[in-house]
């Protein structure tokens, strides 16, 4: 089982979906001459769950920042396919929860709406809805420090989803959590994605997480950062714990770790 081709999953249509954004020859060079990204071509398809895997320092985070508009490419183009080529609504989930420690959970989640000037009543309704979706309905009045790491991360996801974004960028969001919490949050994230059909670009170090979540994986290599390979994982959703122990899962995990190993090995001579 290679996982290439059409597949039979409920999300198989994603493979042929129109692109949301296309990166053409995107390069990002730092002031000291280091090339964080070199000539990256990547297409992010509408509604897909794309996971980017690669060794540390391969420019995964830089790629997300460029897509988010937090940084500008030194060369190349990022072309949005939405109306007028404008950047759509983007939600960003960082490596750490990055909640405001002085503000209650409801205020934290409401922040993007407050900054956009959404009227309070509408914003409060959206916040209550977002907190309920990440199973934090009873914690609106809590301060971040009163919650566990996993709960803080869920609040961070609620904040990213409260604006109903078209695109959700996630930069190793569960990397600091223990394995059990991570698996539970992976499953919760998948059910949110299945229910709402936003597009996700997810960066991770974990092979298993990548295979479990994604409709498609992309492997990056370091120095300079570039996309080595990308392919579809055409397994049906919803995916559950049974999928984690299936032969299809094992085969994909093996293929992915082999390519990531290539990426790590290829990195050295390039330096």
């Amino acid at each position: 089982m290679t996982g290439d081709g059409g597949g039979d999953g409920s999300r198989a249509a994603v493979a042929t979906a129109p692109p949301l954004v296309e990166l053409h020859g995107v390069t990002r060079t730092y002031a000291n001459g280091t090339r964080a990204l070199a000539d990256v071509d990547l297409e992010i398809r509408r509604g897909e769950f794309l996971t980017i895997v690669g060794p540390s320092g391969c420019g995964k985070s830089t790629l997300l920042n460029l897509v988010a508009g937090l940084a500008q490419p030194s060369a190349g183009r990022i072309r949005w396919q939405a109306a007028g080529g404008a950047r759509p609504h983007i939600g960003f989930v960082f490596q750490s929860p990055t909640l405001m420690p002085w503000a209650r959970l409801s205020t934290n989640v409401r922040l993007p709406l407050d900054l956009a000037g959404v009227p309070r009543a509408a914003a409060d309704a959206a916040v209550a809805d977002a907190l309920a979706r990440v199973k934090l309905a009873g914690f609106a009045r809590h301060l971040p420090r009163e919650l566990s790491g996993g709960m803080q991360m869920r609040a961070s996801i609620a904040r990213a989803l409260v604006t109903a974004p078209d695109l959700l960028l996630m930069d190793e969001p569960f990397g600091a959590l223990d394995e059990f919490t991570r698996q539970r949050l992976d499953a919760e994230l998948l059910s949110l994605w299945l229910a709402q059909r936003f597009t996700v670009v997810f960066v991770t170090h974990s092979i298993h997480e990548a295979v479990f979540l994604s409709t498609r994986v992309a492997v990056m290599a370091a120095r300079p950062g570039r996309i080595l390979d990308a392919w579809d994982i055409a397994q049906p959703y919803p995916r559950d714990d049974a999928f984690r122990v299936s032969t299809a899962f094992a085969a994909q995990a093996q293929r992915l770790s082999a390519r990531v190993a290539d990426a790590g090995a290829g990195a050295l001579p390039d330096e």
Partner: protein
Amino acid sequence: MSDAAILRGRWLRVLAPVLVAIVMLAAWQALVTVNQVPAYLVPSPLRVLHTLYADRALLFASLAVTLGVALSALVLAVVAGVAIALVFAQSRWIEMSLFPYAILLQVTPIVAIAPLIIIWVHDTRAALVLCAVVVAIFPIISNTTLGLRSVDRGLANLFRLSQATRWQTLWRLRVPSALPYFFGGLRIASGLALIGAVVAEFVAGTGGESAGLAYQILLAGIQLNIPRLFAALVLIAGAGVAMFAATVGLSRLALARWHESELPRDE
């Protein structure tokens, strides 16, 4: 730790310094009494206490003057210092151009500037307050500027991603982030404001109606009224401790819910 142990620890924190004070004062009293040291050299603690009571009208009127100068100076230093820090935080260029002068103000001894200020400013009280402001303002400026810059990178990115205005970023992100730093500066400034007030009074040497504690010390020294000198010293020290405690309380009120520095240690 058990609850009893925590309680014992809390009591010890209060009890231990009080015990030290009692032992020291008793030893002082005993040494002075046994050796029959005259009061114009070293007065006994009881004698100081007695003077504090006997001269209470004079001393507490002076305390009110000095405390008034120090508190006005602290309030002015906070208002002006925060305003200057907000300007500094707007751009690196402004900060780079002006910060050296803030340092210059800090390193020049107040005793050297005070005579000039007292000559230039006709109203004595205003001159005293100004001297104390000059001494107290620096920690407010430098700490608040640092705090306004010490914003979590992720949160800053989030604000940029949400296209927050400069004003929104300042008010909703930078000001709350700066609060712990500001209160750190305020604690230092509270002590400095009092020192500034006392030093300025020494230089000005104002007597009469507006005589502060420094003037009482000066006068008592000349008259060899050493018990009164000690009594005035006790009042200045007490005032300093009270101002410090007030800023600590204020800081706790503002930060207790969320900042590491004010969270209960036992948690």
